[in-house]
């Protein structure tokens, strides 16, 4: 636990990528396989679920700090992070060196056992952990218990460190980290085992049958699309607004993985039925889309389905889904990602079962970039987000890479709205007002219309924070109502009528496009203008 807490502190202390990778490398190189496996598990964002009710954790923490509940709450509010505030408030450690028991002991013998232990045991274990640990260890430990183990390390940095420690390629490490695995010493040994050679490839280091491939992710086009060169060099498809997914059919089993590596098998009966029609050893990359009468339904319809445990016949009929397939990664059990995109596409067309829930993403034909720009105007009508441009002849790569796949999205909607409420953020934004609610005018009053957290620079955030502190007119818990003065241009992707929202409108992915310091609150948009967007056909 000592080395792990030091790793956490080291990652937390540096903002530089090289420093983080160096810290990861030196931890992983020195750790036992049992500790290293757990560290990787947590660092890439996996976490044990439902260990204990947070209410109990809070109660025991407060008891141990010896503070009244109200004062603990004040401190929590100022710090913005439960794991941290507990580490700061617990009585000083008896031994400043802390515990010398290893990470895997604390995880396997304590953390995971919490789930099935009775409350008395849980409480005793938590108190003994806190009492044996020093402040840095308590913080890392609390992060593990609360499952909010974010330390500003992306998966790609962990992959880089693993690749440097093991000498295995980053692509191979990414692949080995996909899907379901248990953080055991054996897993660690396989993770850092040398790249398979032709002889060992079919041998004992077979990946689990459920393991998906790392997704290839596109970069947005920033300049003019014509900078990509000849249009003939590009395979063009619409950009669908669904859930990116890989459908696996191996050894008679089906697995559906989301891009966030969430296993979604069983959530879409249509796709389970589709998978049974696929040949053995097939992996398709595509988009789960609500689809009816040959066209997508609004994504909000899909959200009606996602939350439900039991899918009624009615909802299955109202919001059927398809897999909008656009790539094929495995054929007859063989990894075909290195084959050119045309080859993969042709193979996908060959295996697509007729009349199934697999729809092939149509290839868009355009003679010229101008022609394509014209066509792009239809995006909103077609309920797509623009185009995907994929370089002909290119392989299927790992992760977000510049060069072969580009997304060319349509301009978002935008509205000028007034800041009306603010509340402090969490994590690195704790104790700063960073989470805002915006209003638009409705018969002379500002009605809340969207919440947004992102889009401002750190300097702008500090300025808004200072404004909020000086101009709070009312307070409800952490939420401050402010003098309606600041105007921001909000950008968002979709807009829908919604009886559940006070403005009658729901928007998708709202964020601050810029601070309109040139505008007064009175000049912000009205709800009528916003509602008019429901009907707009501007694609660009």
């Amino acid at each position, binding site marked *: 636990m000592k080395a792990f807490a030091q790793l956490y502190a080291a990652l*937390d202390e540096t903002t530089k990528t090289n420093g983080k990778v160096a810290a990861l490398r030196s931890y992983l190189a020195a750790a036992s396989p049992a500790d290293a496996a757990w560290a990787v598990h947590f660092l890439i964002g996996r976490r044990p679920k439902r260990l204990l009710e947070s209410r109990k954790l809070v109660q025991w923490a407060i008891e141990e700090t010896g503070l009244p509940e109200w*004062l603990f709450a004040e401190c929590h509010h100022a710090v913005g992070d439960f794991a941290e505030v507990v580490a700061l408030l617990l009585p000083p450690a008896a031994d400043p060196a802390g515990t010398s028991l290893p990470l895997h002991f604390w995880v396997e013998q304590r953390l995971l056992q919490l789930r099935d232990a009775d409350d008395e045991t849980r409480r005793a274990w938590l108190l003994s952990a806190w009492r044996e640990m020093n402040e840095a260890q308590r913080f890392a430990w609390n992060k593990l218990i609360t499952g909010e183990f974010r330390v500003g390390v992306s998966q790609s940095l962990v992959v880089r460190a693993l690749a440097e420690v093991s000498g295995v390629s980053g692509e191979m490490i990414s692949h080995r980290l996909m899907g379901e695995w248990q953080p055991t010493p054996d897993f660690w040994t396989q993770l850092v085992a040398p790249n398979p050679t032709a002889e060992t490839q079919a041998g004992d280091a077979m990946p689990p049958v459920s393991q998906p491939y790392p997704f290839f992710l596109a970069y947005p086009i920033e300049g003019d699309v014509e900078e990509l060169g000849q249009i003939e060099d590009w395979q063009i498809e619409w950009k669908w607004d669904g859930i990116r997914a890989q459908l696996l059919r191996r050894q008679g089993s089906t697995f559906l993985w989301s891009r966030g590596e969430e296993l979604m098998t069983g959530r879409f009966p249509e796709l389970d039925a589709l998978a049974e029609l696929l040949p053995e050893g097939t992996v398709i990359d595509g988009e789960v889309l609500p689809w009816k009468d040959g066209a997508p339904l609004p994504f909000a319809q899909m959200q009606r389905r996602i939350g439900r445990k039991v899918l009624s016949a009615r909802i299955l009929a109202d919001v059927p889904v398809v897999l909008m397939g656009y790539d094929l990664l495995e054929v007859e059990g063989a990894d075909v990602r290195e084959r050119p995109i045309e080859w993969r596409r042709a193979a996908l067309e060959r295996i697509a079962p007729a009349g199934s829930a697999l729809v092939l993403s149509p290839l868009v034909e355009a003679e010229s970039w101008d022609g394509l720009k014209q066509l792009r105007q239809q995006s909103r009508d077609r309920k797509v987000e623009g185009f995907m441009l994929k370089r002909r002849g290119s392989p299927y790569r790992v992760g977000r890479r510049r060069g072969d796949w580009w997304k060319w999205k349509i301009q978002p909607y935008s509205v000028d709205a007034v800041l009306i409420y603010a509340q402090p953020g969490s994590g690195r934004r704790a*104790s700063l007002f960073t989470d805002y609610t915006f209003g638009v005018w409705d018969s002379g009053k500002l009605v809340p219309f969207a919440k947004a957290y992102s889009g401002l620079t750190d300097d702008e955030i500090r300025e808004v924070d200072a404004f909020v502190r000086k101009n709070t007119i009312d307070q409800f818990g952490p939420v401050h109502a402010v003098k309606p003065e600041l105007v921001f241009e909000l950008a968002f992707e979709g807009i829908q009528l919604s009886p559940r929202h006070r403005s009658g409108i729901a928007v998708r992915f709202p964020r601050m496009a810029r601070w309109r310091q040139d505008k007064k609150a009175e000049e912000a948009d009205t709800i009528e203008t916003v509602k008019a967007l429901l009907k707009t056909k501007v694609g660009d």
Partner: protein
Amino acid sequence: MPLLELRESGLYCAAGDFYVDPWAPVSRAVITHAHKEHAVAGCSAYLTAISGEALLRDLIGADLSVQPVPYGETLTLGSARVSLHPAGHILGSAQVRIEDQGEVWVVSGDYKLDPDPTCAPFEPVRCHTFLTEATFGLPIFRWPENTIEAINGWWRSNQEAGKTSLLFVHEAGMAQRLLAQIDAANGPIHAYDAVERITTIYRRQGVAMPPALALAEPERTLILAALSQHGSPWARSFSNASTAMVSGWMRIRGPRRRRSLDRGFVLSDHADWPALLRAIDQTGAERVYVTHGFRAPLVHWLQEHGKDAAAWSAPFEEAEA
């Protein structure tokens, strides 16, 4: 009869016709210490501790009309008897004791109880009413004991990596406290700009500190720079530097991380939570007013512990530093 009241320009003492740390120009100002949130320009007359006079002139103007007062000497202003007592915050920082008709009030200004070789230690003053700051008035603020060693260690490891150590600190007080305590045998220390200027003022008052040197070997040097230099073009010109800040706020991860610093060291010229409670207790005051910082929690705590306490609010809050 209250000895102080909150007026538009600040804390006013009617018995002596003066303000303590006013925030707008007034005719007579008693200044607890020469930090800009406490010392406004434009008053007709100032009164401050002798050891703080030069700092005050440096902060708001050489031609001020200042009456310097030794700690502990009693002046008569109107019907009030007024004296200044060390607050331990920075050189020349003072608590203001006001007595009229047997009633004693003390305004703490900013203070700390921790030892500091560059200024006189905090002196508890018995009073009926105590006006305290609460910049760090929450129990999460507990100052660790080994910060100076941690800074020495950071400096040494930067030297091994061939990096400049760029340390952002409050230029008046913290910079000199560090200069006096950091292990100068480690290598050269450079005081940049405002830090250099104020360090010179400290030296003239007889405060012993190792010399600050011209910047000759950046990769071995510890540079002390003002907080306001963080992110400045000057600071960014050090491409191979490790950056750190010293402040009580560094106790919390959020403020530490959003500044994109390599390190945050927890050390403050303000009292932490245990010290606030100890200082309040030592005054013996039955009434406590909390003037800035985390006012509400401290007031609530004091009330729960049998004190008559209330928050007095300034029109502004100090910037986070």
